[in-house]
């Protein structure tokens, strides 16, 4: 990608179940603090879930919150926080040259389920179906809500990419910046999935919904006794710019997008394919001009399903054998699976490693599954390393979508 403009991260805003700022999120990752609640899911009762507690009224009027969606509020909060973090002089930014590209796993289930429930209280008479349904459920909703809140007149849309969506949003933004379509991009991933019972019921009936008497231990990737996914909400939105533009305005550069790949298994709707995952990671490395040894942290996608974790470990073993300096971790063990936000949040929690040289662990491993025993796996306690120059962020999703995104410390050759 050397012939194309270099793309850098200059701002970040997030909400995670265990933090509403990067500092808070990072501190909890290093301290081993998970935060998973038990919520009452319609038709299903109590279920573990990751719940965000950001203050939506910080950036939205109450009417905006009422008329919009939960994921719209998550997106606006993250985008506004990212803007503040970026140091952009917003009044002087040409809003027609700003794009919003948000990854989503799904959208519309929450509102549709709510309305089906609503009209069930009125004999299923559709004249009680809200006129807000369509603007709330169009697939571009979360990105569109951001543009309306912030007065952005450039392009906006969402990228539907199952649980690879967080990476996909960032990749889309990088590509649009390289093409010159926009000068500033707000990009990442968002999810409101805890508010739809269908996601819970679907995973439950697939035998893939995590459970534990202690909800903070329900999400336990790589543990021998893992039993499935903990569903969470959240968001992480980045400000991306071309390097030259960022330097020209004296921006603080958080990291550089070094390379990426998205590919497809073309094999099974739900069971991942380690061969395609391996190809995805290798292609991302090739495009970044890197060798496996250059990656110091691999942020895994592992969701704590019985087979999925093993498949990813198989792929990583193939690529990173003989890489003693490559550490491997996982964020879902702290916050569950934030679906469309997962990849973007999981990358965010690792970015401070470029400066503090700590690698946060994967937690909740009481008995490591031998099939997941990767040499570089950071288990239960953070480790201090001599340097972190590059992070590989894996995010995979249903229908066999794989994504690998590599970011590197700015200034490293």
């Amino acid at each position: 990608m050397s012939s194309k403009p270099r793309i850098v991260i200059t701002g970040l805003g997030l909400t995670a179940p265990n933090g509403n700022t990067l500092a808070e999120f990072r501190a909890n990752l290093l301290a081993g603090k998970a935060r998973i609640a038990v919520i009452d899911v319609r038709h299903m009762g109590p279920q573990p879930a990751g719940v965000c507690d950001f203050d939506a009224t910080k950036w939205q009027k109450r009417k905006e919150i009422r008329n919009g969606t939960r994921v719209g509020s998550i997106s606006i909060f993250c985008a506004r926080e990212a803007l503040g973090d970026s140091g952009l002089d917003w009044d002087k930014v040409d809003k027609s040259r700003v794009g919003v590209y948000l990854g989503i796993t799904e959208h519309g289930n929450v509102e549709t389920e709510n309305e089906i429930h609503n009209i069930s209280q009125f004999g299923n008479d559709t004249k009680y179906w809200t006129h807000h349904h369509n603007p709330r459920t169009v697939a571009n909703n979360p990105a569109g809500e951001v543009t309306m809140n912030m007065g952005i007149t450039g392009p906006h849309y969402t990228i539907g990419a199952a649980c690879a969506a967080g990476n996909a949003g960032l990749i889309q933004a990088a590509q649009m910046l390289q093409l010159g379509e926009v000068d500033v991009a707000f990009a990442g991933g968002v999810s409101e999935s805890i508010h739809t019972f269908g996601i819970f019921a679907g995973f439950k009936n697939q035998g893939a919904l995590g459970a534990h008497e202690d909800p903070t231990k329900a999400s336990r990737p790589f543990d021998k006794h893992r039993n499935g996914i903990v569903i969470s909400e959240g968001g992480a939105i980045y400000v991306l710019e071309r390097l030259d533009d960022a330097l020209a305005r004296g921006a603080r550069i958080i990291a550089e997008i070094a390379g990426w790949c998205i590919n497809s298994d073309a094999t099974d709707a739900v069971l991942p394919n380690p061969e395609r995952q391996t190809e995805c990671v290798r292609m991302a490395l090739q495009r970044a001009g890197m060798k496996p040894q250059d990656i110091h942290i691999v942020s895994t996608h592992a969701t704590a399903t019985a087979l999925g974790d093993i498949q990813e470990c198989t792929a990583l073993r193939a690529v990173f054998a003989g890489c003693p300096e490559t550490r491997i971790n996982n964020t879902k063990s702290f916050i569950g699976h934030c679906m469309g936000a997962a990849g973007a949040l999981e990358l965010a929690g690792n970015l401070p490693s470029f400066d503090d040289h700590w690698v946060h662990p994967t937690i909740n491993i009481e008995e490591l599954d031998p099939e997941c025993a990767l040499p570089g796996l950071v288990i239960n306690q953070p480790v201090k390393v001599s340097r972190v120059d590059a992070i590989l962020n894996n995010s995979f999703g249903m229908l066999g979508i794989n994504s690998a995104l590599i970011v590197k410390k700015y200034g490293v050759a």
Partner: protein
Amino acid sequence: MTKEDIKQVVLDIIADIAPDEDLTAVKPEVRLRDQLSLDSMDFLDIVMELRKKHGIEVPEADYVQLASLDSCAEYLHPKFEAKGK
């Protein structure tokens, strides 16, 4: 239900759908749109809440009757009476 009661019913609905608005000084004779930040979707919300909470139907041709609190009261009063309210 008196016309004053009906005005309060409408104000209560507006308080729900436009929670940022200060409703303490709404003038009953002035168009709601001229004194509050309300759009067409908000008026559809008023219609929906009248339907849900009070069983009152407002045909689309009559939406104009909801322009002000006074016109709401005039228009809705016989409908509430017909409901025995």
